[in-house]
């Protein structure tokens, strides 16, 4: 796994764009949990790190909506709820203060 960022760099409810091995990774911190997605929306490559984070109406799960054309992805799975492609999600491991991802 590759070092991504320090947890303290991403306050609760915030996000950070990190380049890892030449790949732009959008890291989100929501509800005390970290999520890492490829920053490029699979629709038109809109930057997910600039997206709006939304909670599910039923209170389960968090989503990011691409700022370009509105595709919405589950932060944990990348699922797009029926759109033609899903976002790429990276496995993330928190080791104390440090975050690592598999990419």
């Amino acid at each position, binding site marked *: 796994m590759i070092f991504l960022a320090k947890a303290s760099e991403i306050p609760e409810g915030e996000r950070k764009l990190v380049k890892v091995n030449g790949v732009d990774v959008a890291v989100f911190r929501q509800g005390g949990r970290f999520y890492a997605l490829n920053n490029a929306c699979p629709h038109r*490559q809109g*930057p997910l790190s*600039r997206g709006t984070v939304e909670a599910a109406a039923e209170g389960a799960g968090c989503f990011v909506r691409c*700022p*370009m*054309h*509105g595709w919405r992805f589950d932060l944990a799975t990348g699922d797009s709820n029926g*759109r033609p492609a899903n976002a790429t999600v990276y496995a993330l491991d928190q080791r104390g203060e440090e975050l690592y991802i598999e990419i």
Partner: protein
Amino acid sequence: MSIRMEQIQPIIDHEYAYLMAEHPHWSLTKGDQDLELVAHALRVLLHMKTTPQHPDEYLALVDCQHADGGWGKMSSEKTSAAWVTAFCALMLIRGNLSLKNPRIAESVRKCVRYFLDTQKEDGKWSDPSWADLDAVSHPVSFFDVLMAVGPNLVDAPTMVRVRDSWRKGMKFMLERQDADGGWYDPEFHPTGVEITAHLIQDSIVADLVLGDEHQVRNCCQKGVMKLLSVQAADGSWDGENVDHTMDCTRSIMLVCSILGTRAQCDRTIERGIEWILKHKCEKGWPDFPGMETNLERTCDGLDTLLKYKTYSQPVTTALVKLWGYAA
């Protein structure tokens, strides 16, 4: 206008040179391409009036059209999709005004059949990649252009079907405008900014055909007022979204020119242009300030400046031509 044309023209020249230097990354003559990017680039050629020098670009688009008349997201993709098909169709019908190529004319006729065959009963076209309102507005725009500049491309019975289809599509759009003047899609566009910008420019033509049937002028004026009301103090729209700021700026130019409300919108447009110029990369435009250049956005930026150049010379017909709504 406080933005001087002497300031705009060198930027247009510089960015066009950059786009042409990037030719291998958008031209179908160089291999498989993203067709939305191709269509964006062909629109720049149209508005730079350089289409006659690039017939191969348009013919290459004809070559990858599917048997059903549509195109997919990538030129190699085999499944047709409504949104990108409309964008390609628009570039071909408009490009052929100068190219006058029979293969392109036949391709446009296939596009017409595609849209007549795929419209739903309620008047919409569906595309899983786009909100229904967007997926409807682009074929409607293609039919706008067909009725304006190409009615002789298809036979009379087909033209009757086109008008009927267009009316159903237009009705689908106009009936879904919110009371506040915006169009929204809870699944794709809760803020509604981009959809509203698209729909007012695609609807305004209906004023000429439908008269007062759907109060089109009123709908478009309300849409413009909605966009004016949500412009940020810095001149941008939708959280410094370069794409949406370009969409709004262009769309308001067209609609206020036709509605005769330029005085009300001049400053808004100017602020939009100022913001767009301020956030340009050294070459091209990004999706958001500070990001890397995006070729598609660069095409949008060029298109916006070319439209602004025309807008600054108050001849409405010249501006309308840049949407293809006049020959």
